[in-house]
């Protein structure tokens, strides 16, 4: 295809021709083109099908407001749907395909929906597919989804990477049009740290699209010079291809920078960067967006916004039509006619809804004042139009201007409301701007060039002065073009008149929704979908409101706007995720013995923020159970070693350390002797158990607390709250030392024999009894802490060394344990042994259990004040028939138990009113030779020996169980005291 519509002029580089394809058709364009300008240059007016009626659609605008021209860009995994052709920069080899049609773009099989359009008005789906109810999920919804909608995902993993970044500045200037450039120059020259961001790759905004001059230069040349001056300032950062999409609290802005979207591949670089910009002040110079007029059949390819038609001619050197007509309600629309005529494009007619003197004489053009467009023809592209008075005009491009709406979006992100200005027929920013935000230029309603330049400079000078910079406003010479408007929204007539092209919302839909009682604009939006989807109604919202106002007989300001929310333009989910995907979704920590475990067959599991070994596969072991059973048997039979570094460790020091522990633990700690460890139960103030662990008193004023792995952070936070807010007068200090010490459990009958080879002290039962602790050394001098505590129920120690010795310690323990066949064990074996011993863990400490539930009610001291004691005395938490933690074994010991099963008495139906509790944890006990369980059972403490049904309604299945003591192995604790 040749570039049949390419004309002279514009800012494209004709020395750099680029090839691309659209629906596999080869085309060419130039560097500086967008996909849209290149398609138009090649005479491709039809680019897509509409959302609901599958109407043929063309390019409507020349910017991020585009409702129609959405395409799939690229192929394979990198394919991106719903890319606006108007902002996609052309590159060599670009591949684009059209969306939302079955069969070819020209002969879309789904366009039959258009014939059914009289029935498909607002609320059609809600009203029609209500019954039968079960048809919705299986039939209606899939069918509707297949016919409606936008582009398709590649269904492959996104091959690109995305990054996040943080920036700080004195002044963020949003939009680099005339006002933005002046604001940046003024603040930059004064020495302020400035960021100037614009969504375009070229600074200048409308200056690049108009034939207006500044300082006797072409506007685009002045903009390029201004950008060059700014670029040379070390205190100014220019960010092109960057959309500032949201204004957040306290001067924080969100911005998306497209780094490699304009080149064939990202080449390993981040494709996009999501910036969080911290500002002292921001100046919004976001310009204005043109809107359309609703007239019958105004959606055909070739019907475009007048300012955009001008953009294609002036900036890209592309004539969107051979014979262009203009339909306007304002003076700015005339600029399209005069600019195009000057560029040699034939003008068929200028149709102005106002009864005024024509603004210009255009040779060869029909000038119709007080007229409007009442119909159009041309299914796949505009062929002709007819006016209300019946004048038929041959034209292939109708440039429509319904006036310009300032881009007030960001001013409303903190729930600000815009105010209506009758003189320009548009909403402008209201008074309640986000803190630190100022507005200037067309975005503030100053639509004409000289005013915009001046306002940009003045606002910037005033803001910079506020911040302590000596700024002066200097203006270039320019003229104010005339922008007079007499609002005119909609032409009555036969045929549908579109308001929102992206969602196929017509004047009829708005009127119908009003008639059906949807009076609020928010309801109108949700009922008709006006202003939703990727364009967020940038070209349609005000038009929709005006027609709503007309229908209700209210004024536009009375009708109001819907709430503007971020993002201003679409932000890909990939950019929001950034690097946090796959295994990098969140950081994880490795235990000191991780490398050792990796080389010894470990399978890892996420535990809190850690990766822990869950078992170590050995030799010919086939399944995890083989490994876990062996590890349990080896530990109970001789000695096992487990890395328990992940348990939270809090170092507590100070004269009041003991008194402080007495406050945060429900049981007493004041009298704990130096060199001893005690089990502690921690409650929340409402009397529910929060966490448990052991605390060792190393010295008079020095304690080491351990927490569960998962609660290390929350417990520390809770203790800091108690220290700073509840008992600020206590002399106590907390440090988290979880990462500082590598800690290993050494458990089993040979634990002492093994450790005595390493530890430089006497650890006989007499010298170092159960629940003893000491600061000591290992291997002849390495500092260590030794605790005689046992989670497994065996004779056991936990030995801690500074974390940097952790890996060496693991190797040393295994070496010393060789003669005892020492066995490393993982979290699964740890779990089996704690269930055998009836110790509570995460499955039991659910944030809903009391000390009584756990059978630990007696631990809660009545003699002292501690967090949770008072409220744990409430009668409901001390019911005699409350749940109690007990053990279970299957009556038929060949049957496995299932966690989550509920208990019901024999002969009772498995329904809620007969529910007696549930199984919390189950395991296979190699020592007992059958499955065992822990669970909460009503009056469980009084039901030992009873037989119950354990019913698993969710997965099916039922097992008869016998209630047993939760201490299923060595109930007297003889082993751990050995």
């Amino acid at each position, binding site marked *: 295809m040749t570039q049949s519509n390419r004309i002279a002029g514009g800012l494209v580089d004709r020395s750099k021709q680029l090839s691309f394809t659209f629906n596999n058709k080869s085309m060419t364009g130039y560097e500086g083109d967008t996909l849209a300008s290149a398609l138009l240059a090649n005479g491709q007016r039809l680019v897509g099908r509409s959302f609901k009626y599958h109407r043929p659609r063309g390019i409507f605008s020349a910017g991020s407001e585009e409702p129609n021209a959405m395409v799939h860009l690229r192929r394979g995994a990198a394919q991106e749907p719903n890319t606006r052709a108007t902002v996609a920069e052309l590159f060599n080899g670009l591949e684009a395909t059209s969306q939302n049609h079955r069969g070819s773009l020209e002969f879309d099989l789904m366009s039959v929906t258009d014939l059914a359009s009289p029935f498909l008005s607002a609320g059609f789906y809600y009203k029609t597919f209500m019954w039968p109810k079960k048809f919705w999920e299986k039939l209606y919804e899939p069918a509707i989804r297949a016919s409606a909608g936008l582009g398709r995902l590649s269904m492959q993993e996104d091959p690109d990477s995305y990054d996040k970044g943080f920036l700080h500045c004195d002044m963020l200037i949003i939009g680099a049009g005339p006002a933005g450039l002046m604001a940046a120059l003024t603040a930059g020259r004064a020495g302020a740290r400035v960021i100037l961001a614009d969504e375009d790759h070229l600074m200048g905004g409308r200056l690049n699209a108009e034939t207006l001059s500044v300082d006797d230069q072409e506007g685009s040349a002045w903009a390029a010079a201004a950008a060059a001056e700014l670029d040379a300032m070390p205190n100014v950062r220019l960010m092109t291809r960057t959309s500032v999409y949201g204004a957040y*609290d306290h001067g924080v802005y969100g911005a998306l920078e497209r780094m490699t979207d304009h080149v064939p591949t990202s080449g390993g670089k981040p494709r996009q960067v999501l910036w969080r910009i911290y500002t002292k002040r921001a100046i919004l110079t976001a310009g204005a967006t043109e809107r359309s007029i609703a007239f019958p059949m105004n959606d055909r390819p070739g019907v475009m916004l007048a300012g955009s038609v001008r953009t294609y001619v002036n900036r890209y050197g592309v004539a969107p039509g051979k014979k262009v007509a203009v339909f306007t309600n304002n003076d700015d629309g005339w600029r399209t006619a005069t600019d195009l005529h000057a560029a040699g494009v034939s003008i068929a007619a200028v149709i102005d809804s106002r009864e005024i003197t024509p603004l210009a004489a255009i040779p060869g053009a029909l000038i119709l004042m007080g007229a409007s467009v009442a119909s159009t023809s041309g299914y796949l592209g505009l062929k002709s139009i007819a006016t209300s008075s019946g004048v038929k005009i041959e034209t292939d491009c109708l440039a429509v201007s319904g006036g310009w709406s300032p881009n007030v979006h960001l001013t409303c992100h903190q729930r600000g409301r815009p105010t209506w200005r009758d003189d320009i027929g548009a909403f402008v920013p209201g008074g309640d701007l986000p803190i630190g935000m100022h507005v200037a230029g067309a975005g503030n309603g100053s639509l004409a060039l000289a005013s915009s330049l001046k306002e940009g400079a003045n606002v910037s000078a005033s803001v910079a002065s506020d911040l302590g910079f000596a700024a002066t406003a200097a203006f270039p010479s320019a003229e104010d073009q005339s922008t007079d408007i007499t609002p005119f929204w909609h032409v009555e007539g036969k045929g549908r008149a579109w308001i929102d092209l992206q969602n196929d919302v017509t004047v009829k839909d708005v009127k119908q929704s009003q008639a059906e009682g949807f009076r609020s604009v928010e309801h109108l939006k949700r009922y008709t979908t006006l202003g939703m989807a990727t364009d967020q109604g940038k070209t349609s919202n005000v038009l929709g409101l005006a027609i709503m106002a007309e229908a209700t007989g209210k004024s536009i300001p009375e009708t109001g706007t819907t709430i503007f929310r971020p993002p201003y333009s679409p932000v890909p989910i990939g950019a929001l995720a950034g690097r946090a995907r796959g295994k990098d979704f969140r950081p994880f920590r490795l235990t000191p013995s991780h490398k050792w475990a990796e080389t010894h067959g470990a399978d890892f599991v996420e535990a809190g923020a850690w990766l822990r070994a869950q078992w170590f596969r050995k030799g010919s072991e086939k399944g995890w159970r083989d490994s876990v059973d062996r590890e349990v048997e080896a530990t109970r039979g001789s000695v096992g070693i487990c890395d328990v570094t992940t348990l939270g460790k809090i170092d507590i020091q100070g004269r009041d350390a003991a008194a402080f522990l007495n406050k945060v633990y429900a049981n007493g700690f004041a009298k704990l002797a130096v060199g001893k460890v005690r089990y502690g139960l921690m409650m929340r103030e409402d009397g529910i158990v929060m966490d448990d662990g052991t605390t060792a008193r190393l010295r008079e004023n020095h304690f080491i607390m351990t927490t569960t792995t998962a609660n290390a952070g929350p417990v520390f*936070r809770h203790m800091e709250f108690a220290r700073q807010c509840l008992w600020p*007068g206590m002399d106590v200090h907390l440090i988290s030392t979880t990462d500082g010490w590598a800690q290993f459990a050494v458990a089993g009958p040979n634990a002492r024999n093994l450790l005595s080879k390493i530890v430089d002290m006497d650890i006989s039962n007499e010298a170092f009894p159960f629940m003893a602790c000491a600061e000591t050394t290992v291997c002849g001098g390495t500092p260590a802490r030794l605790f005689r505590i046992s989670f497994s129920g065996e004779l056991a120690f936990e030995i801690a060394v500074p974390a940097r010795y952790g890996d060496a310690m693991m190797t040393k323990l295994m070496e010393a344990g060789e003669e005892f066949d020492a066995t490393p064990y993982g979290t699964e074996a740890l779990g089996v042994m704690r269930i055998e011993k009836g110790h509570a863990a995460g499955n039991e400490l659910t944030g809903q259990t009391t000390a009584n539930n756990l059978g630990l009610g007696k631990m809660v001291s009545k003699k002292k004040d501690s967090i949770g004691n008072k409220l744990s005395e409430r009668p409901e938490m001390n019911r005699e028939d409350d749940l109690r933690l007990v053990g279970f074994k299957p009556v038929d010991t060949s049957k496995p138990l299932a966690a989550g099963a509920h208990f019901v008495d024999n002969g009772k139906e498995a329904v809620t009113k007969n529910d007696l509790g549930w199984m919390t944890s189950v395991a296979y006990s190699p020592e007992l030779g059958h499955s065992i369980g822990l669970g909460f059972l009503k009056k469980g403490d009084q039901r030992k020996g009873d037989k119950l049904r354990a019913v698993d309604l969710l997965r099916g299945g039922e097992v008869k169980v016998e209630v047993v003591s939760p201490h299923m192995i060595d109930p007297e604790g003889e082993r751990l005291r050995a």
Partner: protein
Amino acid sequence: MIINHPLLGPRDAAEFYVMGDADLINRPDPDAEGAAEAFYEYAYLRDNPAGEHRELWYHEQGDRSWLVVTRSTLTHEIMNVEMARDVALAKGRGQ
């Protein structure tokens, strides 16, 4: 949001953990008359004003200070930031 930490200056709210009503500092005296009722109210009843609110914020990704932040729940404007420990001491909390 930006919280102006009394010791560290302006910090992003993302560095903090928020726990709501600063009334949690006022833990009742367990030995006073009606302590059970007072604890019940302390644990469960909070004000949830539309407007000025004193809240507890914990600088978890920072220096671990608990702060009392006076903030408008309507505009997110922050009027005052204090060290919670100072607030607690001023209220006569000690041992």
